[in-house]
């Protein structure tokens, strides 16, 4: 388990590399708005228009080695639920079923305030479910939660979880690498060495 010192001081962003968000939405307008919301909140942003493109970006659909994934370093994925082709839910499932990507928090955005849909997403491993239109306060809350706790644990029994549960008791600040929320598996020391070198 990697134990780097906390490099991210929320009050001084120049010490810390920006968190990188991959936003997925088929709507032009929503992409423009979410991009701005995230940029203003000091995230690095990549926007794509479909789940397929998202998977391509993440390197999941091709036979790439882990080095490429390291370069991308996506810290958070925010996806619209209703999209033609692959829905946000399907994208979520694919990410959570991937050994390389499953640690990346995924947030669903949807205009539907449906308890069954919310529960289904959370049970499938979504970190949060945001009602559209997404607000600055939602993004700020997301950022705080990610900075504080890395990849929060999900309690599958809990229903209607609409806000982050910060499992602070189990996460020590020293174990958080602010660029990269994917926890290094113990059997790839080269990966963690490469990350350290970047700091």
């Amino acid at each position, binding site marked *: 388990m990697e134990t780097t010192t906390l490099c991210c001081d929320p009050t001084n962003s120049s010490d810390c590399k920006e968190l990188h968000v991959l936003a997925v939405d088929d709507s032009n307008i929503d992409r423009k708005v979410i991009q701005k919301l995230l940029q203003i909140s000091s995230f690095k942003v990549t926007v794509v228009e479909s789940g397929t493109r998202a998977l391509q970006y993440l390197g999941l659909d091709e036979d790439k080695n882990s080095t490429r994934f390291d370069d991308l370093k996506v810290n958070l994925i925010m996806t619209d639920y209703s999209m033609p082709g692959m829905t946000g839910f399907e994208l979520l499932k694919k990410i959570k079923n991937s050994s390389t990507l499953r640690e990346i928090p995924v947030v669903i955005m949807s205009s539907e305030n449906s308890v069954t849909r919310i529960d289904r997403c959370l049970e499938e491993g979504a970190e949060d479910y945001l009602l559209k*239109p997404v607000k600055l306060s939602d993004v700020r809350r997301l950022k705080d939660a990610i900075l504080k706790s890395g990849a929060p644990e999900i309690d599958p029994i809990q229903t209607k979880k609409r806000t982050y549960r910060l499992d602070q008791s189990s996460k020590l600040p020293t174990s958080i690498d602010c660029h990269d929320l994917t926890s290094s598996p113990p059997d790839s020391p080269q990966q963690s060495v490469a990350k350290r070198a970047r700091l």
Partner: protein
Amino acid sequence: MLKSMEFIFLEVGIYCHLLMERNQMHRQIASIRKSFFDQGYLDEQFIQLEELQDNSNPNFVEEVVTLFYRDSARFLYNLDQALEKRPLDFNKLDSLMHQFKGSSSSIGAKKVKTECTNFRAHCNAQNAEGCKRTYQHVKREYTTLKKKLEAYFQMSRQVGPIEMACRPR
């Protein structure tokens, strides 16, 4: 000496007059903007967009709204086409309107969004007449808001940011 004094007074006078005019225009624009909210044309999402606007992106709101009107033209065209078909494909109509409603919601177009909701209710009830009727309402609200926002942005651009346009030497 007297001549240059007169000139100074004249300059100051013109400057004050222009400043008053600009202030008046700013007040007018503020009043128009307020009426959009009071009359229910726009909701808090529009304010959220305004909050995202800054010096590095001073026309953000207008850009988003322009993008909405450009995109919507396509949705409305598709809806027009779908409403011509017999029998009506309510699923397709609902799906198209869902997207259009989402976009409307993203710019804070409150009345448009309400009419979209009404339309979708008629789709769910498989009520063809209801769909066609509410679709006209959607288009009406859409066009009304478009005209209002175009005028509003044009005025805002004319006046420019709230700072002095001409300074006395």
